[in-house]
């Protein structure tokens, strides 16, 4: 009887550990990828998942972003100023890959992608545009991370609105 109770307790403990590990695994974030295009896709997935840390883990610390005519000169500035906007935009839109080319060699690669983006603006009007994305990735410790990204669009109105939004954003952290 005593033994059964102990066995039951041990079984429950094992189950709890297993559930805990499964939960941890589901929350574990990517930290770079072995294939450059996978790193790009993982970054977009992190945005869609509203997973700030996962998105940051795919960025090289020397990141420079050119986003719709605005420059984020460091990973910190991008993380502070524009990553929340990109997370919101990703959650409110669908990005379908239209075309992708990859290239480069060694530890530096590029991934060029065009996306058909659909969704809704804040005023409810539809978004239907093409977004052009250049990603440059650098491999460190065997994993590729994004060291430069450049987004632009064929929609002049959206591009202008993005620039206005960026100017209204806070000043970057002084550090």
């Amino acid at each position, binding site marked *: 009887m005593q033994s059964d109770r102990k066995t039951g307790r041990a079984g429950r403990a094992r189950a709890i550990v297993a559930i805990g590990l499964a939960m941890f695994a589901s929350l574990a974030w990517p930290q770079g990828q072995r294939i450059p295009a996978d790193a790009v896709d993982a970054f977009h997935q992190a945005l869609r998942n509203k997973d700030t840390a996962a998105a*940051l883990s795919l960025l090289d610390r020397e990141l420079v972003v050119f986003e719709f005519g605005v420059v984020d000169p460091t990973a910190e500035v991008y993380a502070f*100023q524009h990553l929340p906007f990109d997370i919101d935009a990703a959650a*409110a*839109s669908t990005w379908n890959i239209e075309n992708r080319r990859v290239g480069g060699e060694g530890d530096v690669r590029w991934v060029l992608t065009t996306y058909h983006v659909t*969704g809704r603006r804040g005023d409810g009007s539809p978004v239907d545009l093409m977004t052009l994305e250049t990603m440059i990735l650098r491999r460190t410790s065997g994993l590729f991370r994004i060291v430069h990204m450049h987004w632009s669009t064929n929609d002049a109105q959206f591009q202008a609105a993005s620039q206005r939004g960026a100017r209204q954003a806070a000043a970057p952290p*002084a550090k």
Partner: protein
Amino acid sequence: MAPDPTIRRYTGAVAALGRRDPEGKLYTFKLSPLGPRNFPLSRDDLRGWRMTILSGRHFGEVYWVNGNTESEVTVHRDNGPIDALDVRDVFIIESIDANGASMFAPKTGAGSAASPGV
């Protein structure tokens, strides 16, 4: 794009480090609001929210807010201390719970949580 109305955010900078615990570990800091995404804090407004550090040696690390006052945040011990935190480090605190769900998302049914990103 339309901002997600279910996610609230608070961005700020570390104004001062808090008192370390008896083991010398740091879990508390004083904050100052920074940027457009913040609001006057009341006690425990941010309790359970996700904090991601956006600069310094804890860059990209995630903690969960255990409690706050008008000017101070304490993180949950489960994710370890913030010993390497520095004054002027910046952070974002988002209303996303430990399961990755938006805390202000409309409930879709008993016991169900909104899937993030959907």
